[in-house]
Structures are given as C-alpha cells and as structure tokens.
C-alpha cells in the first residue's frame, strides 16, 4: 500500500478517539490495528468509503450485465464464443439463452436500484457528510453504523452467491412479482436463486434500517452549537428526508418478502390462487397476486425518491459552491423536498394502473402523482436560477451537477406522461418506461453520485481525481446517456414491450432492429468510459494530485474546516460553532463567508 505515507501523516492530526499509531502494513501483529481501522471501522468516513467501494464493484457488475443483455438485443443473430467461456451453458454456442437473459435483466435492476443507487449513493454520502456537515465527531451510534455496512456486505455476499447456483439467480424482474417468483415450476430463476434473492434483500433492509435510524438521530441530536435546522446545508436535509422515507417504507417491503417466503415454503396462499402450473392444478386458493404489488410499490415508489433525493441535495450544494452564489430559494428547496416525501407515500399505485385497479381509486393516484411535478418543477427552476448571474467554475463536479439538472428535466417530464393513467395504458411496460426511469433515476442519480464523488473526493482521500479523464468521462456519459435512452421513447410509443429477449418474430416491433443495434454500440462505449472513471478513482487514491489547502473549492460548509485528512473525530480540539447559513457566497463583496464566521454588525441589523 503506497499510500501508507499519507495515511501516517494524517494520523498526526486525528481527533478525540485514540488510534493505533504503530500500525505498519507489513506487520500484522498489532491486534486490531488493520482490522479496526479498515475492516470493522467505526469511523463514519471509513464506512463511507466501504459503502462507496462496494457500490463501485456492484456498479461494474450491474453495468456489465446490461452490456451482456444489450449484446443480445443489439445483435440477436450474432454469436459471441467468449460469452460461452464466461457463462457456460447459459450462453451455449455464444448466444445468451432466454433464461440467462432474464436473469441478467433481473440482476441488473436489483443491483443498480438497491446495491448501487441506494447503498452506494446514500450509504456513502450520508455517512461521509452528515457528521462532517452538521459538526459531529461521528454518527450517533458508530457501532450501528458499522453493522449497517456489514449487513449490506452480507447481503452482497448472498446476492453474489445466487449468481453461481446451478439454477441461476432470480429471473422474474427486479420487482419479483408472484406467482412467477413464488413457483419454482414456473421459472427456473424462482428456485433456490429466488430464496437467496429474498434473504439478501432482507439483510439489505436490515442494513437500511440500521443506517437510516442512525442518520436521523445524528441529524436531530448531534448538530454543533448554532447549527439550527435551517442552517443545515441542503445535502443534510436531503439525507434526512431520504432516511425517513427508508425507515418508513422498507419494513413494508420486508413484510411483502416474508409473505412471499411463506407462500414459497410454508404452503400459504397470500399471493396464490387458481393456479395450474407444470401440468397440475395447485391447491392454493383465495390469495391475491395484487397484494404483493401493493406491498412492493409502497416501498418501490418511495425507493425512487430514496435514490434521487440525495442526488438532489448534493447537486444543490455543488451548484451553489461552483456558481459562487447562494442556492436560490433555500426554504422552497426544503419545502419541496418535504412535499416530495409526503407525496412519495401516496402514489405507489400509479405502477398498477393496468392491474385491474378500481378506476375511481386510480383517479386519486393520477392526481397525487401529477402533483409531485409541482415540487419537482420548483426545484428545477430554483437550480436554474441559482446558476443565473453566477460566476460558474466548471469543475467536473459542477458539470455533472448541470448534467443532473438536464437529465432530471428530460426524465421528469416523461413522468407527467406516465403518471396520467390514460396515457399509461398505452405506455405501461414498454420501452417508454425504460427510457423514463433510466433517465430520471438512473442517469440523473448517477450524475448526482459522480458530482458528489468528484466534489468530495478531496475530503475522502486528500487527493484530486485526474481532471482530464474526468472531463472525458463527463462528456461521453452525458452524450451517451441521451443517445441510449432518448430513442427508446419512440420504441415505447410503438408499444414495444420491455423485457423481451428477441423482437424478430413480431411484425409490430421488428422495425427497430437497426436502432437496437445502434443503442447497444453506444452502451459499450459508455461502459468503457465508466471503466475509465473507475480506474481514475482507484489510481488517484494512491497517485492523485495531493490536496494542499483545507478548503479547495472555497466552500462555506463545515467539512472544509477539518484537516485535509481528518482522523476519527474529525476536528482537532473543539468542534467549530456555526453562526450563519451555508450559502453566503458573493455576499457584501466577499467571495464566500464560512459558516463559522460570526455575523458582522451590518448583517445583524438586516436580521439575517
């Protein structure tokens, strides 16, 4: 480990909690040294790095799966012998089998939604930023925080294992609707792979609850002196709301999974009724397959806000810092996030307009769903006004933040289409939906994550990422994302269903062969660009340009008052006191005024 020198230098400035000074990488006889510092660490910053790196590994796997199934969609007639070498009988003759295709699709969704954009995104940045930005030495319960990561790690191990079982991983879609997911006879992926999937997800829920409760209590109880709720940066507000959403909705998902496990193994009929599978009638009667969908989407919809809210918070912060302007409409930003949280719980059935839902009930869900567009619109207009008349610095973080706003607009507007039930009848479960949610919660959330990584990398590792690679990464990703997903709207308008292995036998959908081919090629290029980012990430941990100032972006928030490589405890000596909100940029002729600077007499007169 060549970063040993840097790490040693950081130990000089560690805070309140004692550290093992004599640690040397080549000698492991120091009990607890390596283990307590890097493995079962209680330091929120290390846990953040653990979440981030685990998330990156999952992201590579999840994205690689999408490359594999895009090969099938883009080149349905071609064979790739190397596929057989890595997938064995799942790709006999170099062509992915339908079973493997559906397993890849399912795992792609599960991994990206839960393991990357939930754990990897809010796990990383909530852990890193909450204590640093509210002015706390660590989380309310560092132990629970550590357990949260390790529960996630266990979930990861179980999910990873499921990829290697003989009947393959779960393959009923990331939503795992029963009866398909309940009956091993209906689908090979519903055998042992589905059990592992459910166990992994249960562990994941445990991780989310341990983490979420911790985030909430830290934000409510551990703010430094002077840090009232309205002086918190928007990042913290977004993590706060995200945690509340998770804590209230993940248990419902868990209950849905437990009932599903009962149906699978205990002979119950919560979701099963009137089935004739594999040549015989089953004994289950009286269950409702739709019940599962209600339970699933009661989390499933808040889940998309669990993914996007942290990105919104970070983007707000990064746009303000790099525009050298206060975020426009701070209270409106908080209020709109609050509105989104409330509404997030009241719109789940818009995923179920075509399940035979009572049309009258559907009408309420239309109304509430489209209502969400109002706070979302407020946020977009406020972001645009934030950069208006600013003095913009296009750091990589800033570019990704701008990209976030662009994709959030594009994907958000198509939400207005799908939320309107009459349009949804036609577009439901088509490529239009794929285009919509990939742009708004896939690409946008990734842009938010990237913005966060580029912006807080100096805080994470005391070094910078390479800028040139960062800019190449940004431009390829932005252009590529639009090239991939924009044309999919048209496929959806033609009614082309999602989750199809092959379209060649369909008179109605086979006209898009060339387009699918094109999209797949772009996917491969964009995937390569992400690998470049991953390389940059790991390379720069050890060899990146060193950060020389504690506040490289000239930002006002508290994390930049800590040493360049803060130890466990974050601040040497007293935790700084806060006097003002975090967005005093370009005020009274000053470029920026940190939160720790007391109000001047003039400002007090204004009654700020």
């Amino acid at each position, binding site marked *: 480990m060549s970063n040993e020198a840097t790490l040693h230098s950081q130990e000089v400035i560690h805070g309140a909690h004692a550290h093992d000074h004599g640690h040397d990488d080549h000698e492991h006889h120091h009990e607890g040294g390596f283990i307590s510092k890097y493995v079962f660490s209680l330091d929120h910053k290390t846990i953040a790095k653990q979440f981030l790196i685990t998330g990156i590994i999952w992201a590579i796997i999840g994205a690689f799966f999408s490359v594999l199934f895009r090969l099938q969609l883009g080149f349905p007639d071609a064979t790739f012998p*190397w596929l057989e070498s890595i997938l064995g009988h799942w790709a006999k003759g170099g062509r992915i089998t339908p079973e493997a295709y559906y397993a890849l699709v399912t795992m792609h969704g599960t991994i990206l939604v839960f393991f990357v954009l939930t754990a990897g995104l809010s796990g990383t940045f909530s852990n890193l930023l909450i204590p640093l930005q509210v002015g706390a030495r660590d989380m309310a319960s560092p132990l629970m925080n550590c357990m949260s990561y390790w529960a996630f790690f266990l979930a990861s191990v179980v999910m990873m294992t499921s990829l290697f079982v003989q009947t393959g991983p779960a393959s009923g*879609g990331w939503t795992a*609707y029963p*009866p*398909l997911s309940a*009956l091993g006879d*209906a*689908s*090979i992926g519903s055998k042992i792979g589905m059990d592992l999937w459910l166990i992994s997800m249960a562990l994941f829920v445990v991780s989310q609850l341990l983490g979420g409760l911790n985030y909430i209590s830290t934000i409510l109880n551990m703010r430094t002196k002077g840090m009232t709720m309205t002086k918190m940066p928007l990042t913290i507000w977004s993590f706060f709301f995200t945690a509340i959403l998770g804590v209230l909705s993940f248990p419902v998902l868990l209950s849905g999974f437990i009932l599903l496990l009962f149906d699978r193994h205990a002979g119950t009929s919560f979701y099963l*009724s009137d089935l*004739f599978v594999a040549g015989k009638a089953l004994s289950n009667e*009286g269950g409702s*397959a*739709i019940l599962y969908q209600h339970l699933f989407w009661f989390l499933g919809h808040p889940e998309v806000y669990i993914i996007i809210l942290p990105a919104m918070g970070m983007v707000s912060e990064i746009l303000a810092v790099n*525009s050298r302007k*206060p975020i426009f*409409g701070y209270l*409106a930003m908080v209020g709109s996030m609050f509105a989104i949280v409330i509404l997030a719980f009241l719109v789940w059935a818009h995923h179920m307009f075509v399940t*035979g839902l009572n049309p009258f009930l*559907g009408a309420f869900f*239309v*109304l509430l769903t*489209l209502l969400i567009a109002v706070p979302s619109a*407020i946020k977009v207009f*406020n*972001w645009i*006004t934030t*950069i*208006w*008349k*600013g*003095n*913009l610095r*296009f750091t990589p973080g800033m*570019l990704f933040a*701008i990209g976030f706003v*662009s994709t959030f*607009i594009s994907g958000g507007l198509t939400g*207005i*289409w799908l939320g*309107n*039930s*009459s*349009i949804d*009848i*036609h577009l439901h*479960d*088509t490529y239009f939906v794929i285009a919509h949610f990939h742009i708004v919660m896939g690409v946008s959330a990734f842009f938010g994550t990237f913005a966060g990584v580029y912006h807080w990398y100096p805080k994470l590792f005391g070094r910078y990422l390479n800028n040139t*690679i960062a800019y190449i990464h940004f431009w390829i990703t932005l252009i590529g994302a639009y090239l991939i997903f*924009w044309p999919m709207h*048209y496929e959806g308008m*033609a*009614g*082309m*269903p999602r989750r199809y292995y092959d379209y060649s036998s369909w*008179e*109605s*959908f086979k*006209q898009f062969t060339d387009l699918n081919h094109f999209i797949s090629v772009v996917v491969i290029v964009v995937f390569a660009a992400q690998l470049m980012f991953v*390389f940059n990430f790991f390379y720069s941990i050890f060899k990146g340009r060193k950060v020389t100032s504690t506040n490289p972006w000239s930002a006002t928030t508290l994390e930049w008052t800590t040493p360049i490589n803060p130890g466990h405890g974050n601040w040497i000596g007293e935790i700084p006191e806060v006097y003002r909100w975090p967005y005093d940029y370009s005020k009274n002729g000053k470029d920026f005024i940190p939160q720790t600077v007391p109000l001047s007499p003039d400002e007090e007169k204004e009654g700020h």
Partner: protein
Amino acid sequence: MSGYLAVFVVVLIFVVIFQIAKASEYVSILKGEKKTRQQTNRVNGFLLIVFLVLGLVGVYYCNDLLKGKIILEASSEQGRGIDQMIMTTLIITGIVFVITQILLFWFAFKYQEKEGRQAFYFPHNNKLELIWTVIPAIALTILVAFGLRHWFRITSDAPKDAMVVEITGKQFNWLIRYPGKDGQLGRKFFKNINDVNNPVGQDWEDELNKDDYMATEMHLVVNKPVKLIIGSRDVIHDVGLSHFRMKMDAVPGIPTTLWFTPDVTTAQMKEKTGNPDFVYEISCDQMCGAGHYSMKANIVVETQAEYDAWAAKQVAQYAVAHPAPAAPAAPTAAPAPAKDSAQKVVAVNEAKH
C-alpha cells in the same frame, strides 16, 4: 483472434488517454491553478453550448428518423382519445423541455467564470417562486382533467351490445374462448383444466358451455365494441394491444376486463401501412418467464359478414372434449379438420417451451 485485437486496441486507447491525462496534469501544475481553471472553463463552457445546439438538432433529427416507425394513429375509438391525450401532453412538456434546457445550458455558458465579475447575491424572491409554483400547478390541473376524462371513458362499463371474448394467459400463449351462439360464457374452474381438451377448465355441467368455442386467433368485428374478459392460468400476464392503445393485466384468480371499439380492419391497415404482412398482435406485456417474449396471438379485425362466416366454422370445445361415441367409424363427422388444426397449434406452442 479479432477478439484479442479488439481488447488490445481498447487497452491501447485507455493507455493513450491516461498518458495524455497525466501529462496535462503536469502542464496544469506548471501553468498554475488559476490559468488552468480559466482554460478548462472556456473549453467546457463552449462544449456546453455546443451540446445544447447539437442536442436540440439531434432531438429533431431523431424524431424525423423514427416517427415513421410508430403507427401514429390508433385503430380504435378509445385509442384515438389516448393519442389525443399524448399529443396534448407532448406539446406542454415539449415546450417546457425546450425552454428549461435552453435556459440551463445558455446560463451555464453565459455566466461562466470571468475575472473581475462577481456573482449576484440572490438568495430568494417570493414573487418568482410563486409564479413557478402556480404555473406548473395550472398546467398539471389541465392535464389531470383531460386525463381523467379519458380514463373514466375508457374504464367505463362496456356497452350492452358489445361482443364478449375471453382471453386467458398461460406460459406461453393465449387461450381465446368465444361464448358461441348464446352470447354467454360458461362457468370454468381451474381444477377442471387439462391440456388435452379443456385448456381453460370449462365446467361441462354448465349448459352455457355447450356452445363455447376456443380459437387460435381473435376475430373482431369492425366498429363493434368488444369486451375482453381477461384471466390467467399460472402467472401474471398482460394483454397488450399496442395498435388499439389498450392494455390490461391477466391475473390468476382475479378476472379483469377491458373494452374497446376497433375501427380499422386488418385489410385496411395493410393498405394504410403499405405492409402486406401487417397483423394486429397481442403481446404479453408483463414479465411471465423464459418464453415471455414469444407469447403472441393475432387479432383479425373484419367486417360482420367475414366474421359470421368465420364463426360458423368454429367447433364447440364441448364437442372436442366429448367426441360422439355412437359413431366411432365416422371420425370425419363434419368439423374435425378445423378442430384438429387448432389443437395442433396449441400442442406446437407447448412443445416450443
């Protein structure tokens, strides 16, 4: 061999980019942080505005290229309502899309960092915020109102004179049952199902079942409302009727319905699209297992006379399940050929999976 070559080329490109990136980092240190920032700012600011212009051109070009590949007009009365709804929404969201994207990238370009300029301290403005709360709220109210009008129209009860067809999903094909002359479907129960001669589990005790017949294709009469009674035998499927802009899940244990009025015949569509192979297809739109992508049935929309001729040729499933025992020597008794071919198709479909 070409595989290794491709990998080699990719790695080479990576190495080249990395070397350039590394070199440019050294150069930027030599030039000084401030100067480097000014330069990258100018380059990226320029690229942002280029992206905006090329992006908008791209959106136009994409539309031009692909609009011919979607059938722009629905083939049902209800579908036309949905098309209209899509058009209204497209116009409203399209305007917002263009304006906000232009503002975003134009501001980014225009207000890029310049020496000596200070950003404008502008923390909030109640009037502005009120405006962009109220305007979206009004626009959305309009969309909700229009949307719900169509929604209630589409989900209303089917007209009394609508023909009734039952469609049942199974892995991986559709079972279509017509009520026969009496216009009423007989009872069914899933434990009666057998794949040889009773695929949907009809109850033979029920007199109404005597004339119900199974079909491999759905035949509909042009301009006549049709009500589909939708069910499933195993997992959740979805009856997707993209040309009619209709869709409804097929849920085991919970029957669902939808109705619509097809108003363009298959023959007319062949002419309209210039595609002699044109066919209305029922796609399964809910993930249902490994054969999901191949779960298809065709619909033929035809005139009343054509429909009557077709219906007259169909054989009741009851007759299939209860071959006349009195006449073993005469198996060719009238309708056998049609029935046989129908059975064969079912059998073939099953064999495929």
